């Protein structure tokens, strides 16, 4: 159960040991494991402006410093600015003479305004613009020059380091004498290889490093004004810290020096399982669309647990707990409730070692593959509240949207299963709280579900897959606090 603004009463354990509500979890159909934002790989799919929904390739985004060129944020409250139109009164121009007649039509002028704090571009004296979008005066960064120098310098250093590494590698091979490097074999020189790779020549980079002037710390700094400590401060005239930090280039100290902030771009992300490299989510490219091409969310694959109600948890008492289980998949599910320590330990099968694989690895020396490692950890579970395991395993029908309209509750019910309806059922469970449980501490019951899962991934030639699996998930249920 997950809510937008309420606490999460039911949380699931991710394979990596984090506890999250089901809506924050993913389910890899290839590894058959629950994954979360912490243990998957996030990739940037596309850049876009969340306000005007303009899409742009990453190279263009980098060129524009990841900011939209037509949208602005309020420098005062960071809300998006809107363009407002006014009719400027036609200026009375004494020199115009007869031309005045055709100029009578009031001219439409535009200014930027914030609907939240009502800041307007007029507040800081930015003149109204005759066109609705663009054309706003840009303020140049006073340190643009220095920034350029620094950028060039660091690029050159990165370039040189890369070169040094390459050289070292080559030397290593030369000493061993057994290997033929690419350059030896093909007769390519280092410089040629560099030009084919599109990297700048080493000469220009070395000159950039040589000509670079590091910044110098100054002993003498400008003195503070005499009245610095005595002058009364008008908070309405000076900017707040967040306002200054929002535009680090000029960090305006006075409200009158604030400038509209070009809106930072947003990205669409796709998520990838680190273990098997398959996509877990992939959004549609169109920024206006909130749909996904691939959407492997736990919510669609893992049985959902909701609390219907529960009795107050008291130390040394056995209380009842009503839960609702839902099968979100299109296949029947066999579920049994087990103790969390009964979940079998996942033994990690080591990849079968093959000579080809290691050879491949030796080729990709540069590539760091440590990010592929998946942390798998069993969390420490609170044990003060024990669940009475019902001697019962039950089937839960598949999700059937049409069944919502049927009105048949003539299913078998008993002491444990209170009702069934299409793919849902209600359970009555008993929990016993430890005598030692501290009054006032949060009451968390842990239960584990064993459920059957039918894999719908079409089997491929080299990985024959079984269709039916038995999977486990561990759920933490928050039952308020322990009370006397």
């Amino acid at each position: 159960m997950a809510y937008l603004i309420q606490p999460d009463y039911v949380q699931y354990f991710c394979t990596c040991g984090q506890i999250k509500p089901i809506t924050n979890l993913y389910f890899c159909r290839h590894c058959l494991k629950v994954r979360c934002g912490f243990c998957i790989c996030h990739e940037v799919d596309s850049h876009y402006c969340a306000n005007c929904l303009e899409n742009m390739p990453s190279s263009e985004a980098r060129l524009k410093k990841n900011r939209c060129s037509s949208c602005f944020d309020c420098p005062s409250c960071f809300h998006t600015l809107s363009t407002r139109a006014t009719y400027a009164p036609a200026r009375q121009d004494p020199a115009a003479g007869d031309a005045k007649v055709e100029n009578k039509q009031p001219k439409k002028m535009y200014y930027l305004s914030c609907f939240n704090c009502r800041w307007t571009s007029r507040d800081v004296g930015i003149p109204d613009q005759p066109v609705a979008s663009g054309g706003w005066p840009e303020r140049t960064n006073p340190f643009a020059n220095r920034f350029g120098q620094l950028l060039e310098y660091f690029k050159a250093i990165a370039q040189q380091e890369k070169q040094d590494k390459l050289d070292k590698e080559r030397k290593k091979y030369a000493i061993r004498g057994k290997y033929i490097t690419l350059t030896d074999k093909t007769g390519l020189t280092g410089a040629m290889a560099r030009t084919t790779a599109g990297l700048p020549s080493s000469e220009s980079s070395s000159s950039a490093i040589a000509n670079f002037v590091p910044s110098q710390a100054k002993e003498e700094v400008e003195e503070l004004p005499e009245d610095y400590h005595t002058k009364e401060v008008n908070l309405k005239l000076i900017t707040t810290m967040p306002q200054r930090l929002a535009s680090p280039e000029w960090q305006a100290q006075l409200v009158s020096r604030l400038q509209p902030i070009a809106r930072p771009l947003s990205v669409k992300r796709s998520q990838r399982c680190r273990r098997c490299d398959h996509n877990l989510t992939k959004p549609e490219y169109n920024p206006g669309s909130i749909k996904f091409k691939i959407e492997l969310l736990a919510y669609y694959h893992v049985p959902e647990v909701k609390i219907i109600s529960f009795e107050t948890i008291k130390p040394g008492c056995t209380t009842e707990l009503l839960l609702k289980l839902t099968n979100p998949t299109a296949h029947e599910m066999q579920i049994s409730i087990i103790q969390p320590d009964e979940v079998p330990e996942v033994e990690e099968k080591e990849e079968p070692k093959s000579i080809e694989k290691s050879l491949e690895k030796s080729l990709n020396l540069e590539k760091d593959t440590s990010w592929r490692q998946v942390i798998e950890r069993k969390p420490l579970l609170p044990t003060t509240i024990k669940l009475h395991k019902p001697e019962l395993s039950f089937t839960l029908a598949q999700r059937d949207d049409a069944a919502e309209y049927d009105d048949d509750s003539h299913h078998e019910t008993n002491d444990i299963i209170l009702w069934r309806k299409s793919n849902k059922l209600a359970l009555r469970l008993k929990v016993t709280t430890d005598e030692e449980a501290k009054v006032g501490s949060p009451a968390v019951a842990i239960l584990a579900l064993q459920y059957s899962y039918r894999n719908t991934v079409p089997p491929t030639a080299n990985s024959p897959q079984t269709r039916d699996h038995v999977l486990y998930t561990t759920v933490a249920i928050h039952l308020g606090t322990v009370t006397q």
Partner: protein
Amino acid sequence: MSHNVKILPGATVCEDCTLEGDITIGSGTVIHPRVTIIAEGGPIVIAEYCIIEEYSTIIHKKSDNQENPPKPLFIGAHNVFEVGCKVESIFGHIGEYNVFECRCFVGPDVKISSGCVVGASCKLSAPQTLVDNTVIWGSDHNIREALEKQPSQLLQLDFLSKVMPNYHRLRKPNGHKRQPSRQSTEAGK
């Protein structure tokens, strides 16, 4: 007490609102349904071209040191009271071109000048004076000073006064009763 309500010609006042006490509503002002205006501490005078939206409440509270005759509360022209706002004032005067955004609360000890904006859900309860063009917004009650007054809502007023009669029962203007109260207003100012 509602017989003391004076509606000047040109004002649009919905029938489905609570008006208690001595209240004068200026021409061009639009009062939406479900509005509550209570003049218990003295008469309330609402000037021209104000918009008072649904569920907003304006109370002229009884103060401890009640003057005799009671001081009127004069609400200037072009004020906008947005949905669900609550204004309790014991000061005799609210300026013009103010905006009270949705669900804001202005306590009795707050003095409001002109061109001020009290942001949505902002609660002002401590005694204070908002100088001209003060803007308060956000849950942190950020304050800034605008350069100019808020633009008037004449287009919106025009639209409302045309559309409201089609969908709501309106109170009839009874402007002829206006003269005596107006004089007391001038005196109060």
